[in-house]
């Protein structure tokens, strides 16, 4: 039932509204709305019950193991949430003067900038991008600004490995670039020879994720950096997989010029059913002048905003204010709680969990996509054998996992591996949980052998069965009508 179907004309939640008001003083009639908007007229209890019940139809980290590859669904500390929602933080207007009413929040943001520079090995940081995709945009826009500032207008192309996230090519196009794909070799590394052949005076840069989306570390990264830099291009690091190397390798040391971080992954801010995230960018020397504004500066005495005045070559602003501050605070609180030693442990235990799961799944008869490689914080298994022999696909396994109370891993991404599950357990899951998942995977395969309809018809225990996506797209129903 929709909230609108609970609605009854004339029902008012008086506790949440001002009293009756003098109408339209001074707003001439030609500007006024004639029909009421279709908003629910329900009691407070109706609304609370309705949305509480809806929440119970969701899987979430707080209720289920959520090994969604490339998304780093680790525990989101409750402390990060409640401390970021202290009344003083929530009530602060973005234009409140920072000298008298902003030093507290700016201190947190400045220290976060410093920590992000340290973990990535970079020289400057801007926190304003509001998501990973906006961080990517900022990164590529800075690369473009760099070439333009040098009067180099010939660079029209961004290189992207074929295994990359879809946001990479989409971002390059938004920044006015053409995209050239670079193939991957059989071991999951970038095809360095193909890269060598692709670079030239038209190369603006390359966008890379390391570890790659295939769940393996790009071993020839220094060589790749050399090839791109010698051609005059810059290297962009997609921070999607930073959880794998936090405290172990700094992107700066690998030769990257710009990095975006997904704080909703590595720094444990909530995914919120699809955001808000935060996608800060950090840069090396060459891109310092181009960072998006505003940033937080500190002179040893007072924190202040650095804007267009201090940063005249900046690519500019990406948000109406200074980004998703409430999310940045959660990341800051998380960083302070785990501290230096905790950050080094993140990659260690994320990697331990992934390699353990890969070994256990292999022992149970599943096929890793890259059996000769170490897993990083995530790994891929391919169900192409199961699909061929038993007629059950990766999608079927994913849906059946839901029946057993596990969120499905990422399916059919990366596109290079057929019938794939990309599995990322994260460091916050216990061995018992990982074992339970492996057991269920083996059980689903047994079901597929004995009674495949149970698997191909899954899920059976959720509020709905598989949905008709074709009908959804063909007979668009996006808005309820009375």
């Amino acid at each position, binding site marked *: 039932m929709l909230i609108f179907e609970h609605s009854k004309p004339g029902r008012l939640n008086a506790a949440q509204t001002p009293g009756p008001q003098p109408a339209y003083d001074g707003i001439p009639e030609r500007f006024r709305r004639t029909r009421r908007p279709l908003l629910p007229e*329900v009691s407070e209890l109706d609304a609370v019950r309705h949305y509480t019940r809806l929440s119970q*139809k969701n899987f979430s980290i707080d209720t289920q193991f959520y090994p969604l590859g490339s998304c780093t669904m680790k525990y989101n500390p409750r402390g990060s949430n409640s401390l970021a929602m202290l009344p003083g933080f929530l009530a602060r207007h973005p*234009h409140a003067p920072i000298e008298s009413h902003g030093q507290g929040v700016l201190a947190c943001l400045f220290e976060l900038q410093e920590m992000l520079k340290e973990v990535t090995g970079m020289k400057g940081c801007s926190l304003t991008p509001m998501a990973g995709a906006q961080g990517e945009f900022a990164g590529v826009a800075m690369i473009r600004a760099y070439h333009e500032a040098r009067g180099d207008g010939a660079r029209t192309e961004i290189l992207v490995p074929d295994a990359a996230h879809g946001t990479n090519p989409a971002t390059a196009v938004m920044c006015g670039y053409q995209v050239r794909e670079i193939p991957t070799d059989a071991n999951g590394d970038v095809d360095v020879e193909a890269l060598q052949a692709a670079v030239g005076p038209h190369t603006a840069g390359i966008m890379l994720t390391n570890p790659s989306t295939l769940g393996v570390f790009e071993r020839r990264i220094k060589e790749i950096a050399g090839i791109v830099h010698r051609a005059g291009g810059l290297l962009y690091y997609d921070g999607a997989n930073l959880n794998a190397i936090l405290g172990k390798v700094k992107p700066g040391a690998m030769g990257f010029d710009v990095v975006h971080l997904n704080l909703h992954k590595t720094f444990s801010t909530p995914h919120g059913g699809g955001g808000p995230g935060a996608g800060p960018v950090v840069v090396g020397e060459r891109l310092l002048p181009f960072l998006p504004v505003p940033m937080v500066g500190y002179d040893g005495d007072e924190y202040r905003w650095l804007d267009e005045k201090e940063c005249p070559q900046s690519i500019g*602003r990406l948000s109406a204010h200074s980004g998703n501050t409430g999310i940045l605070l959660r990341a800051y609180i998380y960083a302070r709680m*785990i501290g230096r030693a905790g950050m080094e442990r993140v990659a260690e235990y994320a990697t331990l969990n992934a390699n353990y799961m890969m070994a256990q799944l292999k022992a149970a008869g599943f096929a890793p996509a890259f059996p000769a490689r170490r897993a990083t914080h995530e790994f891929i298994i391919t169900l192409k054998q199961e699909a061929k022999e038993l007629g059950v696909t990766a999608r079927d396994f994913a849906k059946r996992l839901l029946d057993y109370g596990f969120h499905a891993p990422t399916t059919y991404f990366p596109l290079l591996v057929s019938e794939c599950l990309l599995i990322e357990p994260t460091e916050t899951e216990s061995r018992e949980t990982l074992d339970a998942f492996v057991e269920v995977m083996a059980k689903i395969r047994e079901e597929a052998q004995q009674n495949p309809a149970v698997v191909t018809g899954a899920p059976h225990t959720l509020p709905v069965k598989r949905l008709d996506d074709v009908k959804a797209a063909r007979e668009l129903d996006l808005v309820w009508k009375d």
Partner: protein
Amino acid sequence: MPFIPHTEDDVLAMLAAIGADSIEALFDEIPAELRVRGLEGVPPGMNEMAVARLMHQRAAQDGMPLCFIGAGAYEHHIPAAVWEIATRGEFYTAYTPYQAEASQGTLQLLYEYQTMIASLTGLDVSNASLYDGASGLAEAVLMAVRANRKSKSRRVLMPATVHPIYRKVVHTIVRNQGIELVELDHSGSGNIEPEYLKRFEGEEFAALVIPQPNFFGVLEEVDALTDWAHVNNALAIGLVNPVALAVLTPPGEWGERGADIAVGDGQPLGAPLSSGGPYFGFMACKQEHVRQMPGRIVGRTVDLDGRTGFTLTLQAREQHIRRAKATSNICSNQGLMVTAATIHMALVGAEGLVRVAHACHANTRALVERLTQIECVEQVFSSPYFHEVVLRINQPVGEVLRALAVQDVLGGYDLSADYPELGNAILICATETKDEADIERYAQHLERILSRRKDGPICTKLRPRAGTF
């Protein structure tokens, strides 16, 4: 170890299963010269108790001043239930609903949200959100350029009555795609003079941006502006405040044919001020443009048994399918803020939102009336407004606002840098959260500050200005 559950025995057993000697051995594919030892620049960890103490101090440092600033972010009452429910783990720690069967809660909520936004804007369809109002306007500009079938122009008319920072953000986001923003001056009435557009007739534009209310709080002649855009083969993009939409004509009903796209910042619907974010952007459009819309869209459909269910749809527009040919690189954005906004709208309801809008308008009127009783304070524009007004004083705005802040009163937004032609101008706002005593407190401090300053020029009270500069 904070948030890591492993015992020593676990680690040993797991390494044995892997066939590795140590955790360190798991990193053996990383070239040795790349490895770092230690993160000296990160402080040692603190437990939750210690961090709580630090954060309480930091939050207290920023105070709880009496705030009369608007300028794109508005203090409204938020029912307690909004964030109690939005931060339930099932909403707070879920991800984008790719597995529809395990995400019906979020998906149904988004469908309800789309319905509410379509109704508020008077348009056919809504997406499931964008990052914020400013970047949402940039997406609307890009969308209009793609969607305009009558004109191939890459020029967009951008009035000076649009929030100055929004204009900067749009510039940052669209400039590399060869899109030109043509600035349109404001008139002496603080809005876009429809007559003034005549100079652009015969030129091609992909779209005209129409803010309602505009950055000065003034109401634009939206019907005439929308019709002008359509007669000149441009699309009309309405930039709107969702609370104002409870009482103002929705974009879908502007002029003869209605605006084509509406966008805005959803912050007034349940998002705390939070130093500027997270907020969310909303976007609605006519049905004919739905395939050019960026962002997630939820559709209602049926399952194998014919039961109603909800799923992400029209994904062929998006980056994870279309890659370089996507409508935008946007993917997950402000889901939790939309969750809060939907609950907020359900709790406040239609009549409630109308009352909130009226109370904002009435309180702003009372504030203007009280402040303009002070010598040397005048209203700059006499045009109709919603809940923000431009005042002019006879002294530098920055200094006066700082003196007010010392008294814990945030007196408004300083316009003198972005609009020097207005003189010492302040943009003020009073939402439903303000009462007579608050207004009196502001007025008394302002009066004292203005009269104490001897170096101010002698002021002669002027009538609000009308006509062109």
